């Protein structure tokens, strides 16, 4: 009897199991060991992690090595940068104005910035449904909106007519192969996003390196200034908006200029005083990686084994500084001599003007592992945004002179005074060129002003027709970088950039 129960009991169990486990259910796999978009976004910490991911893409174009570095693209495009790194052909194509849509630098920006936008879109779509503290959610969404605006602001300036994607994309989405949006619409989103971030309850300063209210307002001021110029040419109204927004940052008294230029590349000064917003690095964890690119080719000056000569300033640009300008003096913004790696008492002539303002002294002399952050928005720029915008609205004023002269005084230059509106405009532009060089700012200024700095006249030429000091002449097509050929291949709804 017992055996019978055993036998039939087993049979019944088997039938039961078969009957109630339909085949489809049995293959429904969730992937419990990994997160998926469907099973994530259930806890407050998921909101934090998802916003963290948006930041990561800012680092990608900074990657540098023997193939060059995407971040140098907008530097070589100014005509003020030189290179000895023969194998980084993409640098030469940009520098010599022979760029093509195949350039990997442009592709890197396009790919990674859209990845950042994709992550921002995901956070913005999913965080509102997570049960969590409302104020915290609002702050996180503020960060996400700021970062989406940051990515779009850079992409629209570099590539012009770009797809505008504001929600997560999947296979069934009509935005999978999008058409290009008008730059006006992209800027509209950027401004909306920054206003959302502005109202998100963020602190004025965030020394941990996250988005702060100071960063939001500074970027918004920069966006307004850019909208006042090319290609939108929104003019006076936007100069006024830019002036007022930058004035809010100045009047907050949360930020100040560093006393020395050395602090621009001093790891102890991350995310404070002059540094409003930065790409975050930490030695031994995620070290900054552009150092090998900014030292001369194999002069044995550095603890890094790779010394590439990837980018340095042209002598023509450095020599255009006022001889009294502290920034152009040895060991301030530029360096022409350093010591030998095997004998630090032995001075090595570097053979060019290498960029000291982003040079990590400790990394080169001992660690080969950089602890620098990359500055994206600093207070000096905010002062110059204010001065430029306010001058357009009101003409020269004491306050404008005061702000510009803070920068000039630090450079040990005489204060500006008694200039006409036009003279002051050019004086402020010159200050931007001299103060913000090699920080991925100058080319963007050139594009919005359609002007280029002439190193021999020290005046400003029209962008189209401007001749670089080493020969090539800018044409209309160089107002934009070409949409990468890989993207054109995979999305036939896109129109290639004119002239490429």
């Amino acid at each position, binding site marked *: 009897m017992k055996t019978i129960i055993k036998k039939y009991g087993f049979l019944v169990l088997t039938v039961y199991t078969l009957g109630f486990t339909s*085949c*489809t259910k049995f*293959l429904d*796999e969730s*992937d419990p060991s*990994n*997160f*998926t*978009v*469907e099973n*994530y976004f259930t806890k407050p910490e998921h909101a934090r*992690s*998802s*916003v*963290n*991911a*948006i930041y990561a893409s800012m680092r990608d174009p900074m990657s540098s090595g023997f193939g060059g570095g995407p971040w140098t693209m907008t530097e070589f495009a100014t005509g003020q940068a030189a*290179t*000895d*790194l*023969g*194998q*980084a*052909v993409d640098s030469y194509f940009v520098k*010599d104005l022979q760029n*093509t*849509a*195949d350039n990997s630098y442009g592709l890197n920006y*396009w790919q990674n910035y*859209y*990845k950042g*936008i*994709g*992550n921002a*879109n*995901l956070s913005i779509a999913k965080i509102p449904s997570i049960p969590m503290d409302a104020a915290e959610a609002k702050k996180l969404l503020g960060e996400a909106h700021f970062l989406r605006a940051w990515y779009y602001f850079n992409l629209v300036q570099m590539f012009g007519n*770009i*797809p505008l*994607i504001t929600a997560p*994309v999947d*296979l069934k*989405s009509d*935005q999978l192969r999008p058409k290009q949006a008008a730059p006006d619409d992209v800027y509209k989103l950027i401004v909306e996003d920054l206003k959302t971030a502005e109202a998100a309850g963020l602190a004025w300063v965030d*020394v*941990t*390196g*996250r988005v702060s209210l100071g960063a939001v307002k500074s970027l918004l001021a920069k966006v307004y200034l850019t909208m006042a110029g090319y290609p939108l040419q929104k003019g006076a109204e936007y100069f006024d908006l830019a002036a007022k927004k930058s004035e809010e940052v100045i009047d907050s008294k949360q930020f100040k200029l560093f006393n020395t230029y050395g602090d621009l590349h001093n790891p102890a000064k991350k995310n404070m005083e002059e540094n409003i917003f930065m790409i*975050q690095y*930490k030695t031994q*964890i*995620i070290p900054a990686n552009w150092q090998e690119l900014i030292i001369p*080719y194999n002069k044995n000056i550095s603890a890094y084994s790779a010394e590439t*000569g990837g980018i340095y300033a042209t002598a023509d640009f450095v020599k255009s500084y006022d001889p009294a300008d502290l920034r152009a003096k040895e060991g301030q913004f530029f360096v022409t001599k350093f010591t030998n790696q095997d004998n630090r008492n032995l001075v090595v002539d570097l053979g060019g003007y290498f960029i000291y303002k982003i040079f990590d002294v400790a990394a080169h002399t001992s660690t080969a592992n950089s602890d620098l952050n990359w500055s994206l928005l600093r207070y000096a720029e905010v002062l110059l945004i204010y001065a430029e915008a306010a001058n357009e609205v009101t003409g020269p004023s004491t306050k404008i002179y005061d702000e510009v002269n803070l920068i000039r005084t630090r450079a040990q230059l005489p204060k500006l005074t008694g200039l006409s509106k036009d003279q002051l405009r050019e004086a402020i532009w010159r200050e931007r060129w001299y103060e913000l060089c090699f920080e991925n700012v100058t080319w963007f200024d050139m594009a919005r002003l359609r002007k280029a700095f002439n190193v021999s006249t020290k005046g400003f030429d029209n962008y189209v027709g401007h001749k670089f000091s080493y020969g090539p002449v800018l044409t209309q097509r160089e107002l934009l970088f070409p949409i990468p*050929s*890989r*993207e054109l*291949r*995979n*999305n*036939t709804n896109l129109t290639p950039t004119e002239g490429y």
Partner: protein
Amino acid sequence: MQNKYLITLTGRADGSSKFGTENQYAFFPSAALAWRVIEEDFMKNIPSISNLKIRASYGATGNSEIPAYRALAGMGNYNVIFDGTRNIGIGTNRMANSTLQWEKTKQIDFGLEVGLFSNRLNFELDLYRRKVNGMLLEAPLPLSSGYASIFSNVGSMENKGIEFSVNSTNIKTDDFSWSTTFNISVNKNKVLALASGDIFSGNGVIRVGEPVGSFFGRVHLGTWGTNEAAEAKKYNMLPGDVKYKDLNNDGRINDLDRTIIGKGIPDGFGTFLNTFQYKAWSLTVDLQYMYGNDVLDRSIHSAEDRQGIANSYKTVLNAWTETNQNTSIAQIRPINAYYTTNNDSHKVTDGSFIRGRNLLLAYTFPSATAASLKLNRLRVYGSVQNFFVATKYKGYDPEVSNSGAPFDQGLTLYDYPKPRVFMVGLNIGL
């Protein structure tokens, strides 16, 4: 009846959780028919035919060889620094593909087996057509989506071919015998359809109407001469630079000027094996051949294009100079001048070859000798594996692939050469 007609029918339904919820199951039937004609009564009157069989088959099979969870929108880890410490970020990694399904192969095959003269001469012939639907590959996505690629069923391709083999005992006497085996496989591969245009996979392209594993690159025309300086300048080139063909005639040389410059998969291949036996001596000559395949030697990228930066082939001694302009090798420039390097037709050569796969000579001692040593069997032999390769290819070995990407056959970058092995051996049977 049972010996004359053979029928096999099978059917199986497979399910895999790797695929999208809409398409996890697929049914794979197959059928095979064979007619052993030799068993028919009318064959009894033809004594020279010792075997005759006709067969046909049709079958479907499935492939699910992709990593798990590719149908789901998996998220990935991102690291970020805040306050000088590592913070975890979780963000996008894979786009979901709920329609991901089995790759299905349908094959139809027709075969004929003939044996003549008590099977001293045997032929076997197979004709087949194999169609692969829903090829599982990583397909590129527009980057504006935030993703670079997605695992999907990208399209279909077909393989058509003939396989033929002969086994023959050419001579058989008491002291001497000679037998030959020859086989050949001829295959034609073609991509039939792709859901969204060309797929660039590794160094090749997958394009409708072309074989998979087609090499993709520029057409190398040599170098610009000093008398072409004006034309070279239009392309921002100097005399001494590599001259590529402006395929689309847009006045620029860029990635749009790439085309199919070769293919890694062969038109045909096979073996030719002869065995000779004379008294106690035996000799085996084993040859292998392949034709219609190209090799894309990417070692040239480093060894010719990067003169002065990397170690070079001695071919760079023939680099362009004012007095040596008829050359494929660009002028040697200072290290800080830029150089160009692209996959191009100069790096592609015909990889057809005949290889001496094995040459083996053996002598078996008479059983009396073996017995005197208290052994059952004693045999000595010497062999040379890979004893020659006849090919136009200049690299180490035309039968090469050291790339990990799918369909990258015939692609090499600093491959390790195939060794030639000399062996001497002794077989002892106790």
